[in-house]
């Protein structure tokens, strides 16, 4: 316990330098600015803004990225409440009641509640990360290649179960992601694999390029098709701070949402996505009058927003302790860290304690920043959202193009992104959800490496994955959740959760 506070103290001493506070501030501001644009979720935002952190020192860059991340999350909620367009899967739930509140002239209260709920969840999640960081890092040291492989298999199984829509289609997407990850030079033999003999592909497909194409460009194409979906609130924003009766109503949902989100966020395989859905379902189940939900119930904003932010933050735990990104956003973080010469994993905490704890402390600061800068700036976001989409998407496009070009200073990357935009649009048309594909892609390279190592150690015997107890346990969990999800009774429930 005292060790944890000493560590957090170290973190705050790093994060509270003038430069780092300024970076957190700028990160939150631009993150929100871009995240507010409809159809631009956190993934596209971070991919777009990644280059602006290149010139900084590693600690500063990560602090700024964390700020961008929270800003993008919060920007997504703002869009969900004011325009009824969710920037990404997790803010879908916020549109249900948040947008209704906005239509009733309580947009300000909805935004304020979302910010306060997120802040509370952020504070709790910061402590959770600080508390779990050290023990999980010790656990990670017990992990050999076989355990890592099994853990990632489990993560992918979670991703399949937690994806929206058909399980079979989610499976397809995971495998497609794995397949895409094998493009490029083979790690051991140096042979080129499936590159069409095209030199820019020999390093493999760049994650930022794939993510930006599938989540940035394809999303623009999708939004262009449904112009009627945009419904900017014309009503007054109203006061921002929730009144006493609102607070009383929202308090318990926030606490429950935080708990649900924090636990689900730790799961490998994008558990954080499920948080808001689960929280909404729980609140609706235990409410005295469930019919209020969908018509502007404040609990329907407070709970899911808390769950969303708690999950968004505890998702850092698998990344920082095990080096395994649990979702696409965290995969971008891996990319950013690698650019600065940090390889995420258990060694970060021992080798760069100032970076590790500084980043955790900056998470809290980032949450505080959001509260401080976003609420006063609500008017600005509303103005921004009233810009017609015919001007907004060309602006999104030039940001994306410059962002992608700047990641590697490669013009060909921009053309590749366009190609993946087409690919993503095709996936949308075919009813595939692209998020699991990105996760498969992210974990693919690491899985292949660990699989090969494990099989070399075991001399080609697959039994090694079952004989080692931790690995066997992880695989057992993976099989169990797949079986449960495929049981007819359960699959019905699952559909209910996602359609609500």
């Amino acid at each position, binding site marked *: 316990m005292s060790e944890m506070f000493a560590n957090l103290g170290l973190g705050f001493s790093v994060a509270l330098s003038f430069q780092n506070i300024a970076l957190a501030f700028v990160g939150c501001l631009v993150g929100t600015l871009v995240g507010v644009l409809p159809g631009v979720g956190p993934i596209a935002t971070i991919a777009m803004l990644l280059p602006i952190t290149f010139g900084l020192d590693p600690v500063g860059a990560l602090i700024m990225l964390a700020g961008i991340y929270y800003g993008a999350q919060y920007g997504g909620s703002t869009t969900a409440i004011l325009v009824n367009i969710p920037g990404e899967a997790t803010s879908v739930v916020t549109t249900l009641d948040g947008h209704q509140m906005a239509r009733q002239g309580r947009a300000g209260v909805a935004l304020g509640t979302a910010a306060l709920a997120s802040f509370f969840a952020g504070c709790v999640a910061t402590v959770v990360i600080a508390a779990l960081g050290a023990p999980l890092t010790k656990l990670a040291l017990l992990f050999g290649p076989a355990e890592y492989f099994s853990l990632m298999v489990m993560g992918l199984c979670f991703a399949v179960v937690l994806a929206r829509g*058909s399980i079979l289609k989610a499976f397809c997407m995971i495998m497609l992601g794995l397949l895409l990850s094998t493009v490029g030079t083979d790690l051991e*033999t140096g042979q080129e694999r499936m590159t069409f003999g095209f030199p820019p592909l020999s390093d493999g497909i760049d994650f930022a390029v794939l993510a930006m194409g599938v989540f940035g460009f394809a999303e623009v*194409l999708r939004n262009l098709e449904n112009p009627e979906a945009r419904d900017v609130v014309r009503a007054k924003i109203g006061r921002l701070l929730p009144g006493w009766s609102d607070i009383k109503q929202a308090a318990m949902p926030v606490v429950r949402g935080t708990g649900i989100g924090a636990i689900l966020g730790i799961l490998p395989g994008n558990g954080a996505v499920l948080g808001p859905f689960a929280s909404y379902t729980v609140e609706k189940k235990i409410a005295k009058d469930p019919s209020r939900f969908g018509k502007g119930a404040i609990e329907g904003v407070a709970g899911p927003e808390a769950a969303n932010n708690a999950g968004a933050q505890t998702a850092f735990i698998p990344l920082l302790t095990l080096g395994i990104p649990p979702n696409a956003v965290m995969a971008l973080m891996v990319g950013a860290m690698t650019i600065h010469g940090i390889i995420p994993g258990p060694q970060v905490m021992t080798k760069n304690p100032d970076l590790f704890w500084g980043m955790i402390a900056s998470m809290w600061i980032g949450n505080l920043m959001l509260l401080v800068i976003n609420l006063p700036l609500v008017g600005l976001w509303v103005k921004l959202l009233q810009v017609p989409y015919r001007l907004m998407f060309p*602006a999104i*496009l030039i940001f994306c193009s410059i962002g992608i070009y*700047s990641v590697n200073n490669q*013009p060909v990357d921009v053309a590749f992104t366009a190609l993946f935009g087409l690919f993503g*649009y095709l996936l949308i048309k*075919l009813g595939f959800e692209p998020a699991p594909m990105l996760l498969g892609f992210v974990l693919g390279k690491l899985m292949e490496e660990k699989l090969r190592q494990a*099989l070399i150690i075991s001399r080609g015997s697959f039994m090694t994955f079952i004989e080692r107890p931790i690995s066997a346990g992880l695989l057992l969990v993976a099989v169990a959740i797949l079986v449960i999800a495929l049981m007819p009774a359960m699959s019905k429930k699952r559909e209910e959760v996602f359609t609500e």
Partner: protein
Amino acid sequence: MSLNKIEAAQGWRIRSTQDFAGGLFMIGLAALALFLARDLPLGTLRQIGPGMLPKSIAVICAALGALLSLNAMRYKGEKLSGWSWRGVFFVLGAAVVFGLTIRGFEIGPLKVPQLGMLVSGPLVVFIAGLAAEDVRLKELAIFAVAMTTACALLFKYALSLPIPLAPWLLGI
């Protein structure tokens, strides 16, 4: 949708064009991957070769695709919806034009010098903007110039990213 719906239906016909096409799409991609990876050695389990994973994953993809297509013939599901070529052409075309002109290119006899952001920027905004059905050309042209100026100030000067502005004119 398809797997979870317990709608036993009689006879085989395509009940969900979306899922059916999705299955074919997976099979097609898997076939392409198998073709591209045809010369990569499989290796043995003891020493996995470069071809082992791509090939086995491709086979799994194809199997899942086949399952999806078969399911589409048994269970009802979504239909394929229309495809908007206008968006694809202008939006993605704009990005490609940006990539081609920012640092110049040479394809066969075609040669474009390094035009830089002051040219590529307005191009990308303008071309993309044409995708909107309610496009207003004059407004879009002004917006293209304004956005480029803002981006140049932001990315080149405020963030000092090494992006060429207009090498043929300004030398930067």
